[in-house]
């Protein structure tokens, strides 16, 4: 298998942790709340899913448990940020540290253990194509994740719920004047962000690399946070960015497969370096951020 077809076959799976977490954060940020705790929520979801699958509860049960656990953690954040009106940055960091701590605590007895992954489901015909064939042979979660992406895009763009979420983020006072409960909608959006981060962590720990190691999320939550900025809060661009980062993070394995002798620490740093470069390039365009950005992002909403 050539390095290129290896990357093409694997990039969707590698993208999944970024994609799921970034889509959840996108919804939360669209409602005007900045949750910096994604890394911790993913870490908690990862350990919960791993434990459930390891106790042979099955992947479906593992994902549900992970989603619920991370959504619960996100709700604690939402309570701090929305009900108590604490500093959103500090609250997000606190939740992140708490999630990572809980992950290490629960995962201690599972260090270096493995669980079975998921089988690939291929689309007949397409998956036999040369070079691109691998793209059409993915596990069930990737297919579901792509469907969920479509659903989130359509909801934000066409449904009344999506309109209300965006209105709450753009101008909470106007949304309130129209009779919408700003705080309740933001609670929901933040909890949804937690749910998706939980799924993202579950995918990372029980499907993508089904082996438990403390700190296995390794900054992917932070990259997901950056992806939302790269994508200038647009769903389609989140998908593009996530797949790009999936491909970048595969480069280490691809380089080995292709026999390229590159420093492994440099390759491991590549996603972080790319994040810094892209963040600089996108953020420098202030007009783009202003047009597409969320007007009330990070600001508390009082009565």
């Amino acid at each position, binding site marked *: 298998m050539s390095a290129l077809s290896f990357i093409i076959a694997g990039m969707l799976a590698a993208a999944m942790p970024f994609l799921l977490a970034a889509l959840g954060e996108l919804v939360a940020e669209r409602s005007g709340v900045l949750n910096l705790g994604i890394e911790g929520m993913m870490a908690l979801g990862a350990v919960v899913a791993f434990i459930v699958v390891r106790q042979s509860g099955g992947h479906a049960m593992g994902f549900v448990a992970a989603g619920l656990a991370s959504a619960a953690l996100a709700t604690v954040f939402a309570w701090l940020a929305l009900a108590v009106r604490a500093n959103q940055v500090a609250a997000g960091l606190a939740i992140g540290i708490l999630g990572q701590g809980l992950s290490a605590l629960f995962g201690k007895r599972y260090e270096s253990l493995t669980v079975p992954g998921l089988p690939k489901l291929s689309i007949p015909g397409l998956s036999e194509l040369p070079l691109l064939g691998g793209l059409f042979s993915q596990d069930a979660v990737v297919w579901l994740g792509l469907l969920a992406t479509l659903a989130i895009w359509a909801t934000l763009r066409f449904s009344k719920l999506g309109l209300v979420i965006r209105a709450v983020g753009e101008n909470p006072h106007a949304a309130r004047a129209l009779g919408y409960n700003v705080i309740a909608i933001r609670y929901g959006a933040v909890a949804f962000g937690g749910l998706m981060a939980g799924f993202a962590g579950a995918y990372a720990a029980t499907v993508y690399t089904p082996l438990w190691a403390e700190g296995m999320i390794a900054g992917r939550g932070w990259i997901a946070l950056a992806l939302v900025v790269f994508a200038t809060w647009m769903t389609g661009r989140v998908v593009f960015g996530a797949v790009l980062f999936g491909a970048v993070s595969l480069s280490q394995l691809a380089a080995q497969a292709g026999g390229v002798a590159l*420093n492994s620490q440099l390759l491991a740093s590549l996603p972080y370096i790319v994040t810094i470069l892209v963040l600089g390039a996108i953020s420098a365009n202030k007009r783009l951020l202003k047009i597409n950005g969320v007007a009330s992002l990070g600001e508390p909403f009082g009565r």
Partner: protein
Amino acid sequence: MGIRMIRRTTASRRMAVLAPMGALALAIVLNFLLYIVMGNDPAAVFYALLLEPFVSWSSFSEVLLKMTPLLLIAQGLAIGFRAKVINIGAEGQFILGAIFASAIPVWFPQATGGWIWPLMLLLGGVGGALWAALPAFWRVRLNASEILVTLMMSLIAGQLLAYLLVGPWKDPMGFNFPQTVMFQWDAMVPTLIPGTRVNVALILALLWTALAYVYMQKSFQGYQLVVGGLAPHATAYAGFSEGRAVWLSLLIGGFAAGLAGAAEVAGPMGQLQRGIASGYGYAAIIVAYLGGLHPVGILFSSLFMAALYIGGDNAMVSAGLPVAAVRVFQGSLLCCYLAAIVLVRYRLVRDGQEVTA
């Protein structure tokens, strides 16, 4: 019947003292419920975690040793946080400080002289500041969030450390362990209190605290930084640029973290090794917030967090408490604090109750 939050006309001084104590009490209750669920003996954990660090001089001296890097880093970070420059990459700046300081003993293992350790500390500070300079540039020139860039720089710093330790800086006689040579005597920060590991860096951290107090509470520039954080437009009118605040905040924070990293390799570590990246940079964020971003408050919060580390080690040995429990305690303590501290600026009023400002 609901409860409403009413903004106080002036911040409550009584609450400013009571709220952190209430938060601590709540965090203790929540975490001990967790320990009971996990099957640990709560009384044994309570003694080992919260009391034992203070009962003997030898363990208290270890608390002072742990407090040193936390105090240095948190004072630097708090200056930025008050100016709304959120540097969460102190871990990377700390690692770079350790690497820069290690360059002297690694490249000149035979060098002697009393100038070596002070130069190492200075180099460490410079290394940390350089690592923070890129996020500052990215924020000022490219408008990129310093939150994300400082964090990414930390992750890169971890890889750089790993590279040096398995590659060019690995001790050739070290049985292939990822670590450098042990540093020579003159590359070590002198011990302050005989019979303990407390070293001169503690004095530096206390001096740094005094400096931070004068800078933030008494100097005009410090005042501009704080006001700039609260009301950016007002300070922009007064001719104080946001860019300058970003540069100052990140360079000060980076220098302090780098100094702490240098003091760690030239102190308790005695060599550059993977263990240097032990999360002080992240813990210091909690220390800074728990101290109310105030130099005096941070003095107390760094002492408490250091005691929590030592207590955590004790509780692991004597009561079987997992090390990660300390991180859970730290995270939940900050959550409780953020919830409680709101009472300083707001009061709670029952619906229907008459409101008098």
